[in-house]
């Protein structure tokens, strides 16, 4: 039976979806019954949420004319 370490590694390396049928199924089954590993999935989702929030901040800090300035500097 697949254990927490293996499931955690598959989740964290983004390799869960790349697993073959049976391995994928047992990993999903493990996730269904393991609260700790589901906690990891929520942490990873939180990281994505955090990354998107930081990305939005970067987008807001650059002026609306940024693309125009790039065009001008490239003489386009």
């Amino acid at each position, binding site marked *: 039976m697949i*254990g927490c370490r293996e499931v955690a590694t598959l989740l964290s390396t*983004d390799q869960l979806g*790349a697993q073959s049928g049976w391995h994928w199924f047992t990993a999903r089954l493990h996730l269904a019954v393991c609260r700790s*590993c589901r906690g*990891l999935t929520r*942490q990873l989702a939180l*990281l*994505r949420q955090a990354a998107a929030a930081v990305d939005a901040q970067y987008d807001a*800090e650059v002026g609306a004319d940024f*693309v125009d300035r790039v065009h001008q500097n490239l003489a386009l």
Partner: protein
Amino acid sequence: MAELNQMGQEGLARLHQRDAAALRAVVEDMARPLYRAARGMGFSQPDAEDLVQDVFRTFMETIDRFEGRSRVSTWVFGILHHKAQERRREFAREDAHDPIDDVFESQFDGTGGWTTPPVDLERQIASSEIAEAIGGCVDRLPAALREVFVLREMQGLDTAEACKILGRTVTHVGVQLHRARTRLRLCLESKGWKGSR
């Protein structure tokens, strides 16, 4: 980016001819994502802006080598990757063994079960709060891990595209993403991001 990513032979020919409208379309689609990625990699605002200009200059100089076998976005992110490496003068020297691997392993017992389960973060968190919390954690990531995290999580590129951009294998990118995520999770936990368990 959708239009550019579905570029056909006609679009490619226009780029090779330095057609101004085609080049402007690339700039319009990619300038802001490139800027955000450069900021995510740790460059200051002025340096990130300068880097974007530099990427497009190189894009225009090397456009004849672009054969349309990858997306335009992959091509320009690849230029950004090389420019960022040049500027950091940090050539992705990476230890085969990262101490964070030991930290990760120490979270499991001999049977592969968690000894210290991840904190279950169930509460909804304001974007500004979470952005502030993770900012310092991302700054502490080694450059190579930070770059993978930025491309995958901030820019939302899939693993295959990140591999093309960075010139690394799926396994390598997976390991780097895992190391980045493990460091960031532990960093957030150390900042007291404790939800209900």
